[in-house]
């Protein structure tokens, strides 16, 4: 195994906040999850060299180390020299060039032209070679953009919200395609998104960004299971979050839902909130631990889910078959003490 490392440590003053991101990546794909305008794109652009950070270091080691940026040694490699591919949100295909010309644009005179037809084939673009970007669907445009990047043969690929411009029913298909493509890609990749499903699906490791700061970092599964912080819980899709009053080491009172809960983990004094995922409630009995009365709950039907909102604002989601339109809300719900997430502000 070769010695590979992507090192990113950048600080930059922005209008709304200061960006301060510091991480290392040893292999595969890193996801950056955060709300709109949290500095995600700015981070990617700093790595690609499109934007200059104020301070810091960006370097890539693939056997040998290449320093992309180093504010102390005043190194700032041009984007052209970095060998970093960037998939723009709007794909940034050149409107004045055909599919073929777009894919070939990154090749130099000495490169083998065969790679263009290889990429066209690999991304199922046969027959579209002479078309212009405006004549393609959103999904086809994305494939052309990917083919263009891979033909260039980058060491790192940066994905900037790759699915946000697509219709919902196209997204899933293209996600699978991208996952499969990434499997074959030898270099590093970073995917930026505000969609928790995308982050979960693509990336083994995750970095949660808010207001330019990293508020969580780790294995994707761990972050989703134990978000630790209110903002992380919210971004990973936790619907029920409440401020609490600690009663004792294993009990608390929720201030938003006005009920008392038992929790299996020890509540330390730094805990200010709890989170309960909407999927984690189960039908229960009156005498169960953490039982909740469902009087006056309202239900909302989705194709494969019921969304139930209790009177106190708690959300419950339960799977259903598409054909079933009747659902009796159970009198009581319960939540397993192990499933309650303890959160810090």
């Amino acid at each position, binding site marked *: 195994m070769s010695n590979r490392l992507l090192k990113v440590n950048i600080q930059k003053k922005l209008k709304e906040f200061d960006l301060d991101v510091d991480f290392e990546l040893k292999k595969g794909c890193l996801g950056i999850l955060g709300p709109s305008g949290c500095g995600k794109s700015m981070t990617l*652009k700093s790595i*690609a*060299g*499109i934007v200059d950070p104020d301070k810091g270091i960006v370097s890539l080691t693939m056997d040998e180390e290449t320093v992309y940026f180093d504010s102390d040694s005043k190194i700032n490699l*041009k*984007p*052209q020299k*970095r*060998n*970093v*591919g*960037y998939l*723009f949100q*709007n794909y*940034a295909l*050149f*409107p*004045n*060039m055909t599919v073929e010309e777009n894919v070939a*644009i*990154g090749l*130099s005179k000495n490169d083998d032209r065969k790679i263009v037809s290889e990429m066209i084939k690999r991304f199922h673009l046969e027959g579209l070679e002479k078309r212009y970007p405006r004549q393609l669907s959103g999904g086809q445009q994305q494939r052309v953009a990917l083919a*263009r*990047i891979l033909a*260039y043969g*980058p060491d790192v690929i940066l994905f900037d919200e790759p699915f946000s411009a697509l219709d919902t029913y196209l997204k899933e298909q293209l996600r699978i395609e991208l996952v499969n493509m990434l499997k074959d890609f030898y270099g590093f990749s970073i995917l930026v998104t505000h969609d928790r499903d995308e982050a979960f699906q693509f990336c083994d490791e995750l970095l949660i960004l808010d207001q330019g700061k990293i508020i969580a970092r780790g294995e994707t599964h761990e972050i989703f299971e134990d978000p630790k912080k209110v903002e992380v819980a919210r971004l990973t899709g936790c619907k029920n979050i409440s401020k609490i009053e600690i009663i004792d080491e294993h009990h608390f009172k929720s201030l938003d839902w006005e009920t008392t809960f038992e929790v299996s983990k020890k509540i330390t004094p730094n805990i200010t909130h709890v989170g309960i995922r909407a999927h984690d409630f189960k039908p229960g009995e009156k005498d169960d631990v953490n039982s909740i009365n469902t009087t006056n709950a309202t239900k909302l039907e989705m194709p494969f889910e019921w969304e139930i909102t209790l009177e106190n604002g708690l959300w419950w989601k339960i799977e259903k078959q598409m054909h079933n339109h009747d659902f009796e809300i159970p009198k009581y719900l319960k939540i397993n003490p192990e499933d309650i997430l303890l959160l810090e502000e």
Partner: protein
Amino acid sequence: MTDWSPIFISMKTASLSILVTFFLGLIVAWILIKIKNDTVKIVLDGVFTLPLVLPPTVVGFFLLYIFGVRGPIGKFFLDFFTVKIAFSWTATVIAAVVMSFPLMYRSARGAFEQVDSNLLDAGRTLGMSEWKIFWKVLFANALPGIISGGILAYARGLGEFGATAMIAGNIAGQTRTLPMAVYSEVAAGNMGEAFHYVIFIVIISFFVI
């Protein structure tokens, strides 16, 4: 009989000046877009736009100051090449370039700014040289705006009057361009003669547009 010389002089002046203005305008617009310092950008933009805002005669006054026989450049040329710039045909070109440049520069800059900046960045991350990005991406996608800017600048150069009157004068057969000729003929009461020139200009204008 109509004197044809203003037509030839005007065509020569406008053609040469648009060549200079076109490329100069493109390059300056490209350089200005790349400047990251906002203050420098605004100041330079102000300077390049000045000839559009100042009265043509004032611009002509300054040009005369620079290119006149006692001006710094004028004196240099007179001393070393024994060439008088002011009140020569060269002066009509200088006046046309200076007056039409802001139009070209602003149109080109506007057209460049309309081009999605992601395209330029995409080009960079794909290893394209800045020169290739300029021509194949920026220029190619800004072309409609650039052409319309070029046409405006050409028309401006062709119609230049105030600054030309100041620095080049109104010497029949030498610096008397079409707009000059219209003025002179009307001033001399020859509305008919002037009308010939006007028709000619209007035809060119329509042809150009």
